[in-house]
């Protein structure tokens, strides 16, 4: 009797095992969603401490992100400015149209010169009027105070500052040229400054990213301590390291991604808050400059990166602390 029952039982368990193997792949997703939901649940279990951790992560991410936006805007603003250097030839005010035309032709024929643009005195005046807002004052003047200008762009292969300097000297000697000015040095300096700022922001981002990693790692370490007994029990009933690790990795990734999301919200609110001030500033310059926020792609990248940082922080904590928990 007992033998027969044992045989029946064995048969049942064989069938069960076959079903069980067939169901494994769907069980895989179930297991992951379970781990995901349970880690989400853990965050809500201690809402205050979770929120505090998230706030710290968010602030650490906000700082470099905001600076990145400032940098992006600066680059956007300076984009139209050629780093190659442009030489402006201010012509003497008594220069006639015909003389100017001849001069343009003469400059254009020089071997080092790429392109030449002639801006007549009248043209210059109207542009200045439009951009400066000094319309009424200019109306009151008897004559046009703006000289005609020839803008000279060196050929693209003429990059060496000595060559350009030589060109400037050559142009300066031309008759009718009052002043030859190279608009390059200040631009080069500006770019150098932007470069320094850019590298500093990247370094700052690196250190704050490291901070996020450590914050998440430490939070996960404390969570592991709280779940010490549970981990032991899971190991005793046959849970693999991967099974135990999974919810903690989800928790870490969630911390990172949610912190990144909060950072996005903070950056956008800051941009909204400072928008009037920026508008006022650009208004003073009569500029048509529009501030740029973070694009969709930037946002996704930020979420991905912060999620990755959280994942890595959790990964280090788990491998250091979790695997040391062994049942006794």
């Amino acid at each position, binding site marked *: 009797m007992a033998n027969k029952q*044992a045989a029946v039982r064995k048969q049942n368990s064989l069938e069960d095992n076959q079903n*069980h193997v067939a169901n494994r792949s769907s069980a895989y997703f*179930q*297991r992951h969603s379970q781990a995901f939901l349970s880690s989400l649940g853990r965050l809500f279990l201690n809402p205050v401490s979770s929120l505090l951790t998230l706030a710290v992560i968010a602030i650490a991410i906000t700082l470099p992100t905001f600076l990145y936006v400032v940098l992006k805007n600066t680059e956007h603003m300076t984009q139209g400015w050629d780093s190659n250097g442009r030489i402006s030839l201010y012509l003497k005010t008594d220069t006639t149209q015909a003389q100017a035309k001849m001069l343009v032709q003469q400059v254009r024929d020089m071997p080092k010169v790429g392109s030449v643009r002639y801006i007549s005195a009248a043209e210059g005046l109207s542009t200045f009027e439009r951009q400066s807002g000094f319309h009424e004052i200019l109306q009151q003047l008897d004559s046009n105070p703006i000289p005609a200008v020839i803008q000279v762009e060196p050929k693209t292969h003429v990059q060496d500052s000595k060559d350009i300097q030589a060109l400037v000297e050559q142009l300066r000697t031309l008759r009718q040229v009052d002043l030859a000015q190279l608009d390059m040095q200040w631009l080069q300096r500006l770019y150098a400054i932007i470069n320094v700022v850019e590298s500093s922001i990247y370094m700052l981002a690196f250190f704050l990213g490291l901070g996020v990693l450590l914050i998440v790692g430490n939070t996960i370490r404390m969570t592991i301590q709280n779940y010490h*007994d549970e981990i032991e029990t899971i190991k*005793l*009933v046959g849970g*693999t390291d991967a*099974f135990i690790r999974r919810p903690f990795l989800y928790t870490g990734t969630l911390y990172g991604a949610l912190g990144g999301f909060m950072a996005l919200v903070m950056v956008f609110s800051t941009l909204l808050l400072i928008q009037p001030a920026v508008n006022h500033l650009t208004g003073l310059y009569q500029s048509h400059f529009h501030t740029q926020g973070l694009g969709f792609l930037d946002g996704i990248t930020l979420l991905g990166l912060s999620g990755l940082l959280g994942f890595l922080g959790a990964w280090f904590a788990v491998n250091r602390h979790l695997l040391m928990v062994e049942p006794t």
Partner: protein
Amino acid sequence: MIRFINVSKRYPNGQEALQKVSFQVKPGEMAFLTGHSGAGKSSLLKLIALIERSSQGQVFVEGQNLNGIKHKDIPFLRRKMGLIFQNPRLLKERTVFDNVALPLIIDGYRHQDISRRVRGALDKVGLLDKEKTYPDFLSQGEQQRVGIARAVVNKPRLLLADEPTGNLDPDLSREIMGLFNQFKKVGVTVLVASHDLALIAGLKHRILTLKGGQLISGMVDAQHGK
């Protein structure tokens, strides 16, 4: 099912828990392991579940030499057996149902199968009506039965119990032993460590007695002549 050949266990602090222990438990057999506390009962069970590893000798479970099992394969060995402890080690933040379901979730069973099997196991220990309760609201006897339901839910062929009645009064203890008997009747191999001689003597199963780390009686199965 279980076979020990000259197994010794020495802990890093120098304590000799087991010395040259040899015995065998056949498939479908139920046996008791007894002796004073500190005689090596728990150590012996821990070697079978690879919670500890033997210092010398060989332990076989279902013909598999445990010395050859790598650390990462231990979980899969443990899934073949049900472990029951004096303290049932239930997860307090989870319901009775979730506690019993744990081994099935770990093993990747589907939701529908999990419900079916958990209810089956709870029915067997008489706690079907408590599935939504949290462990803290159960009596000790009920908690131990939840622990047993968790141990048998994935239908292991081997049950190991370490002082399962240590915290229970005699009536509840007999009830628990009755449960083990039922599992034995459906072909499960059961090894129960207990120092409660009065309780186990009345149950007509083989009794292995440990003293100071050595097996002093019950090495052979009297009923089967070996």
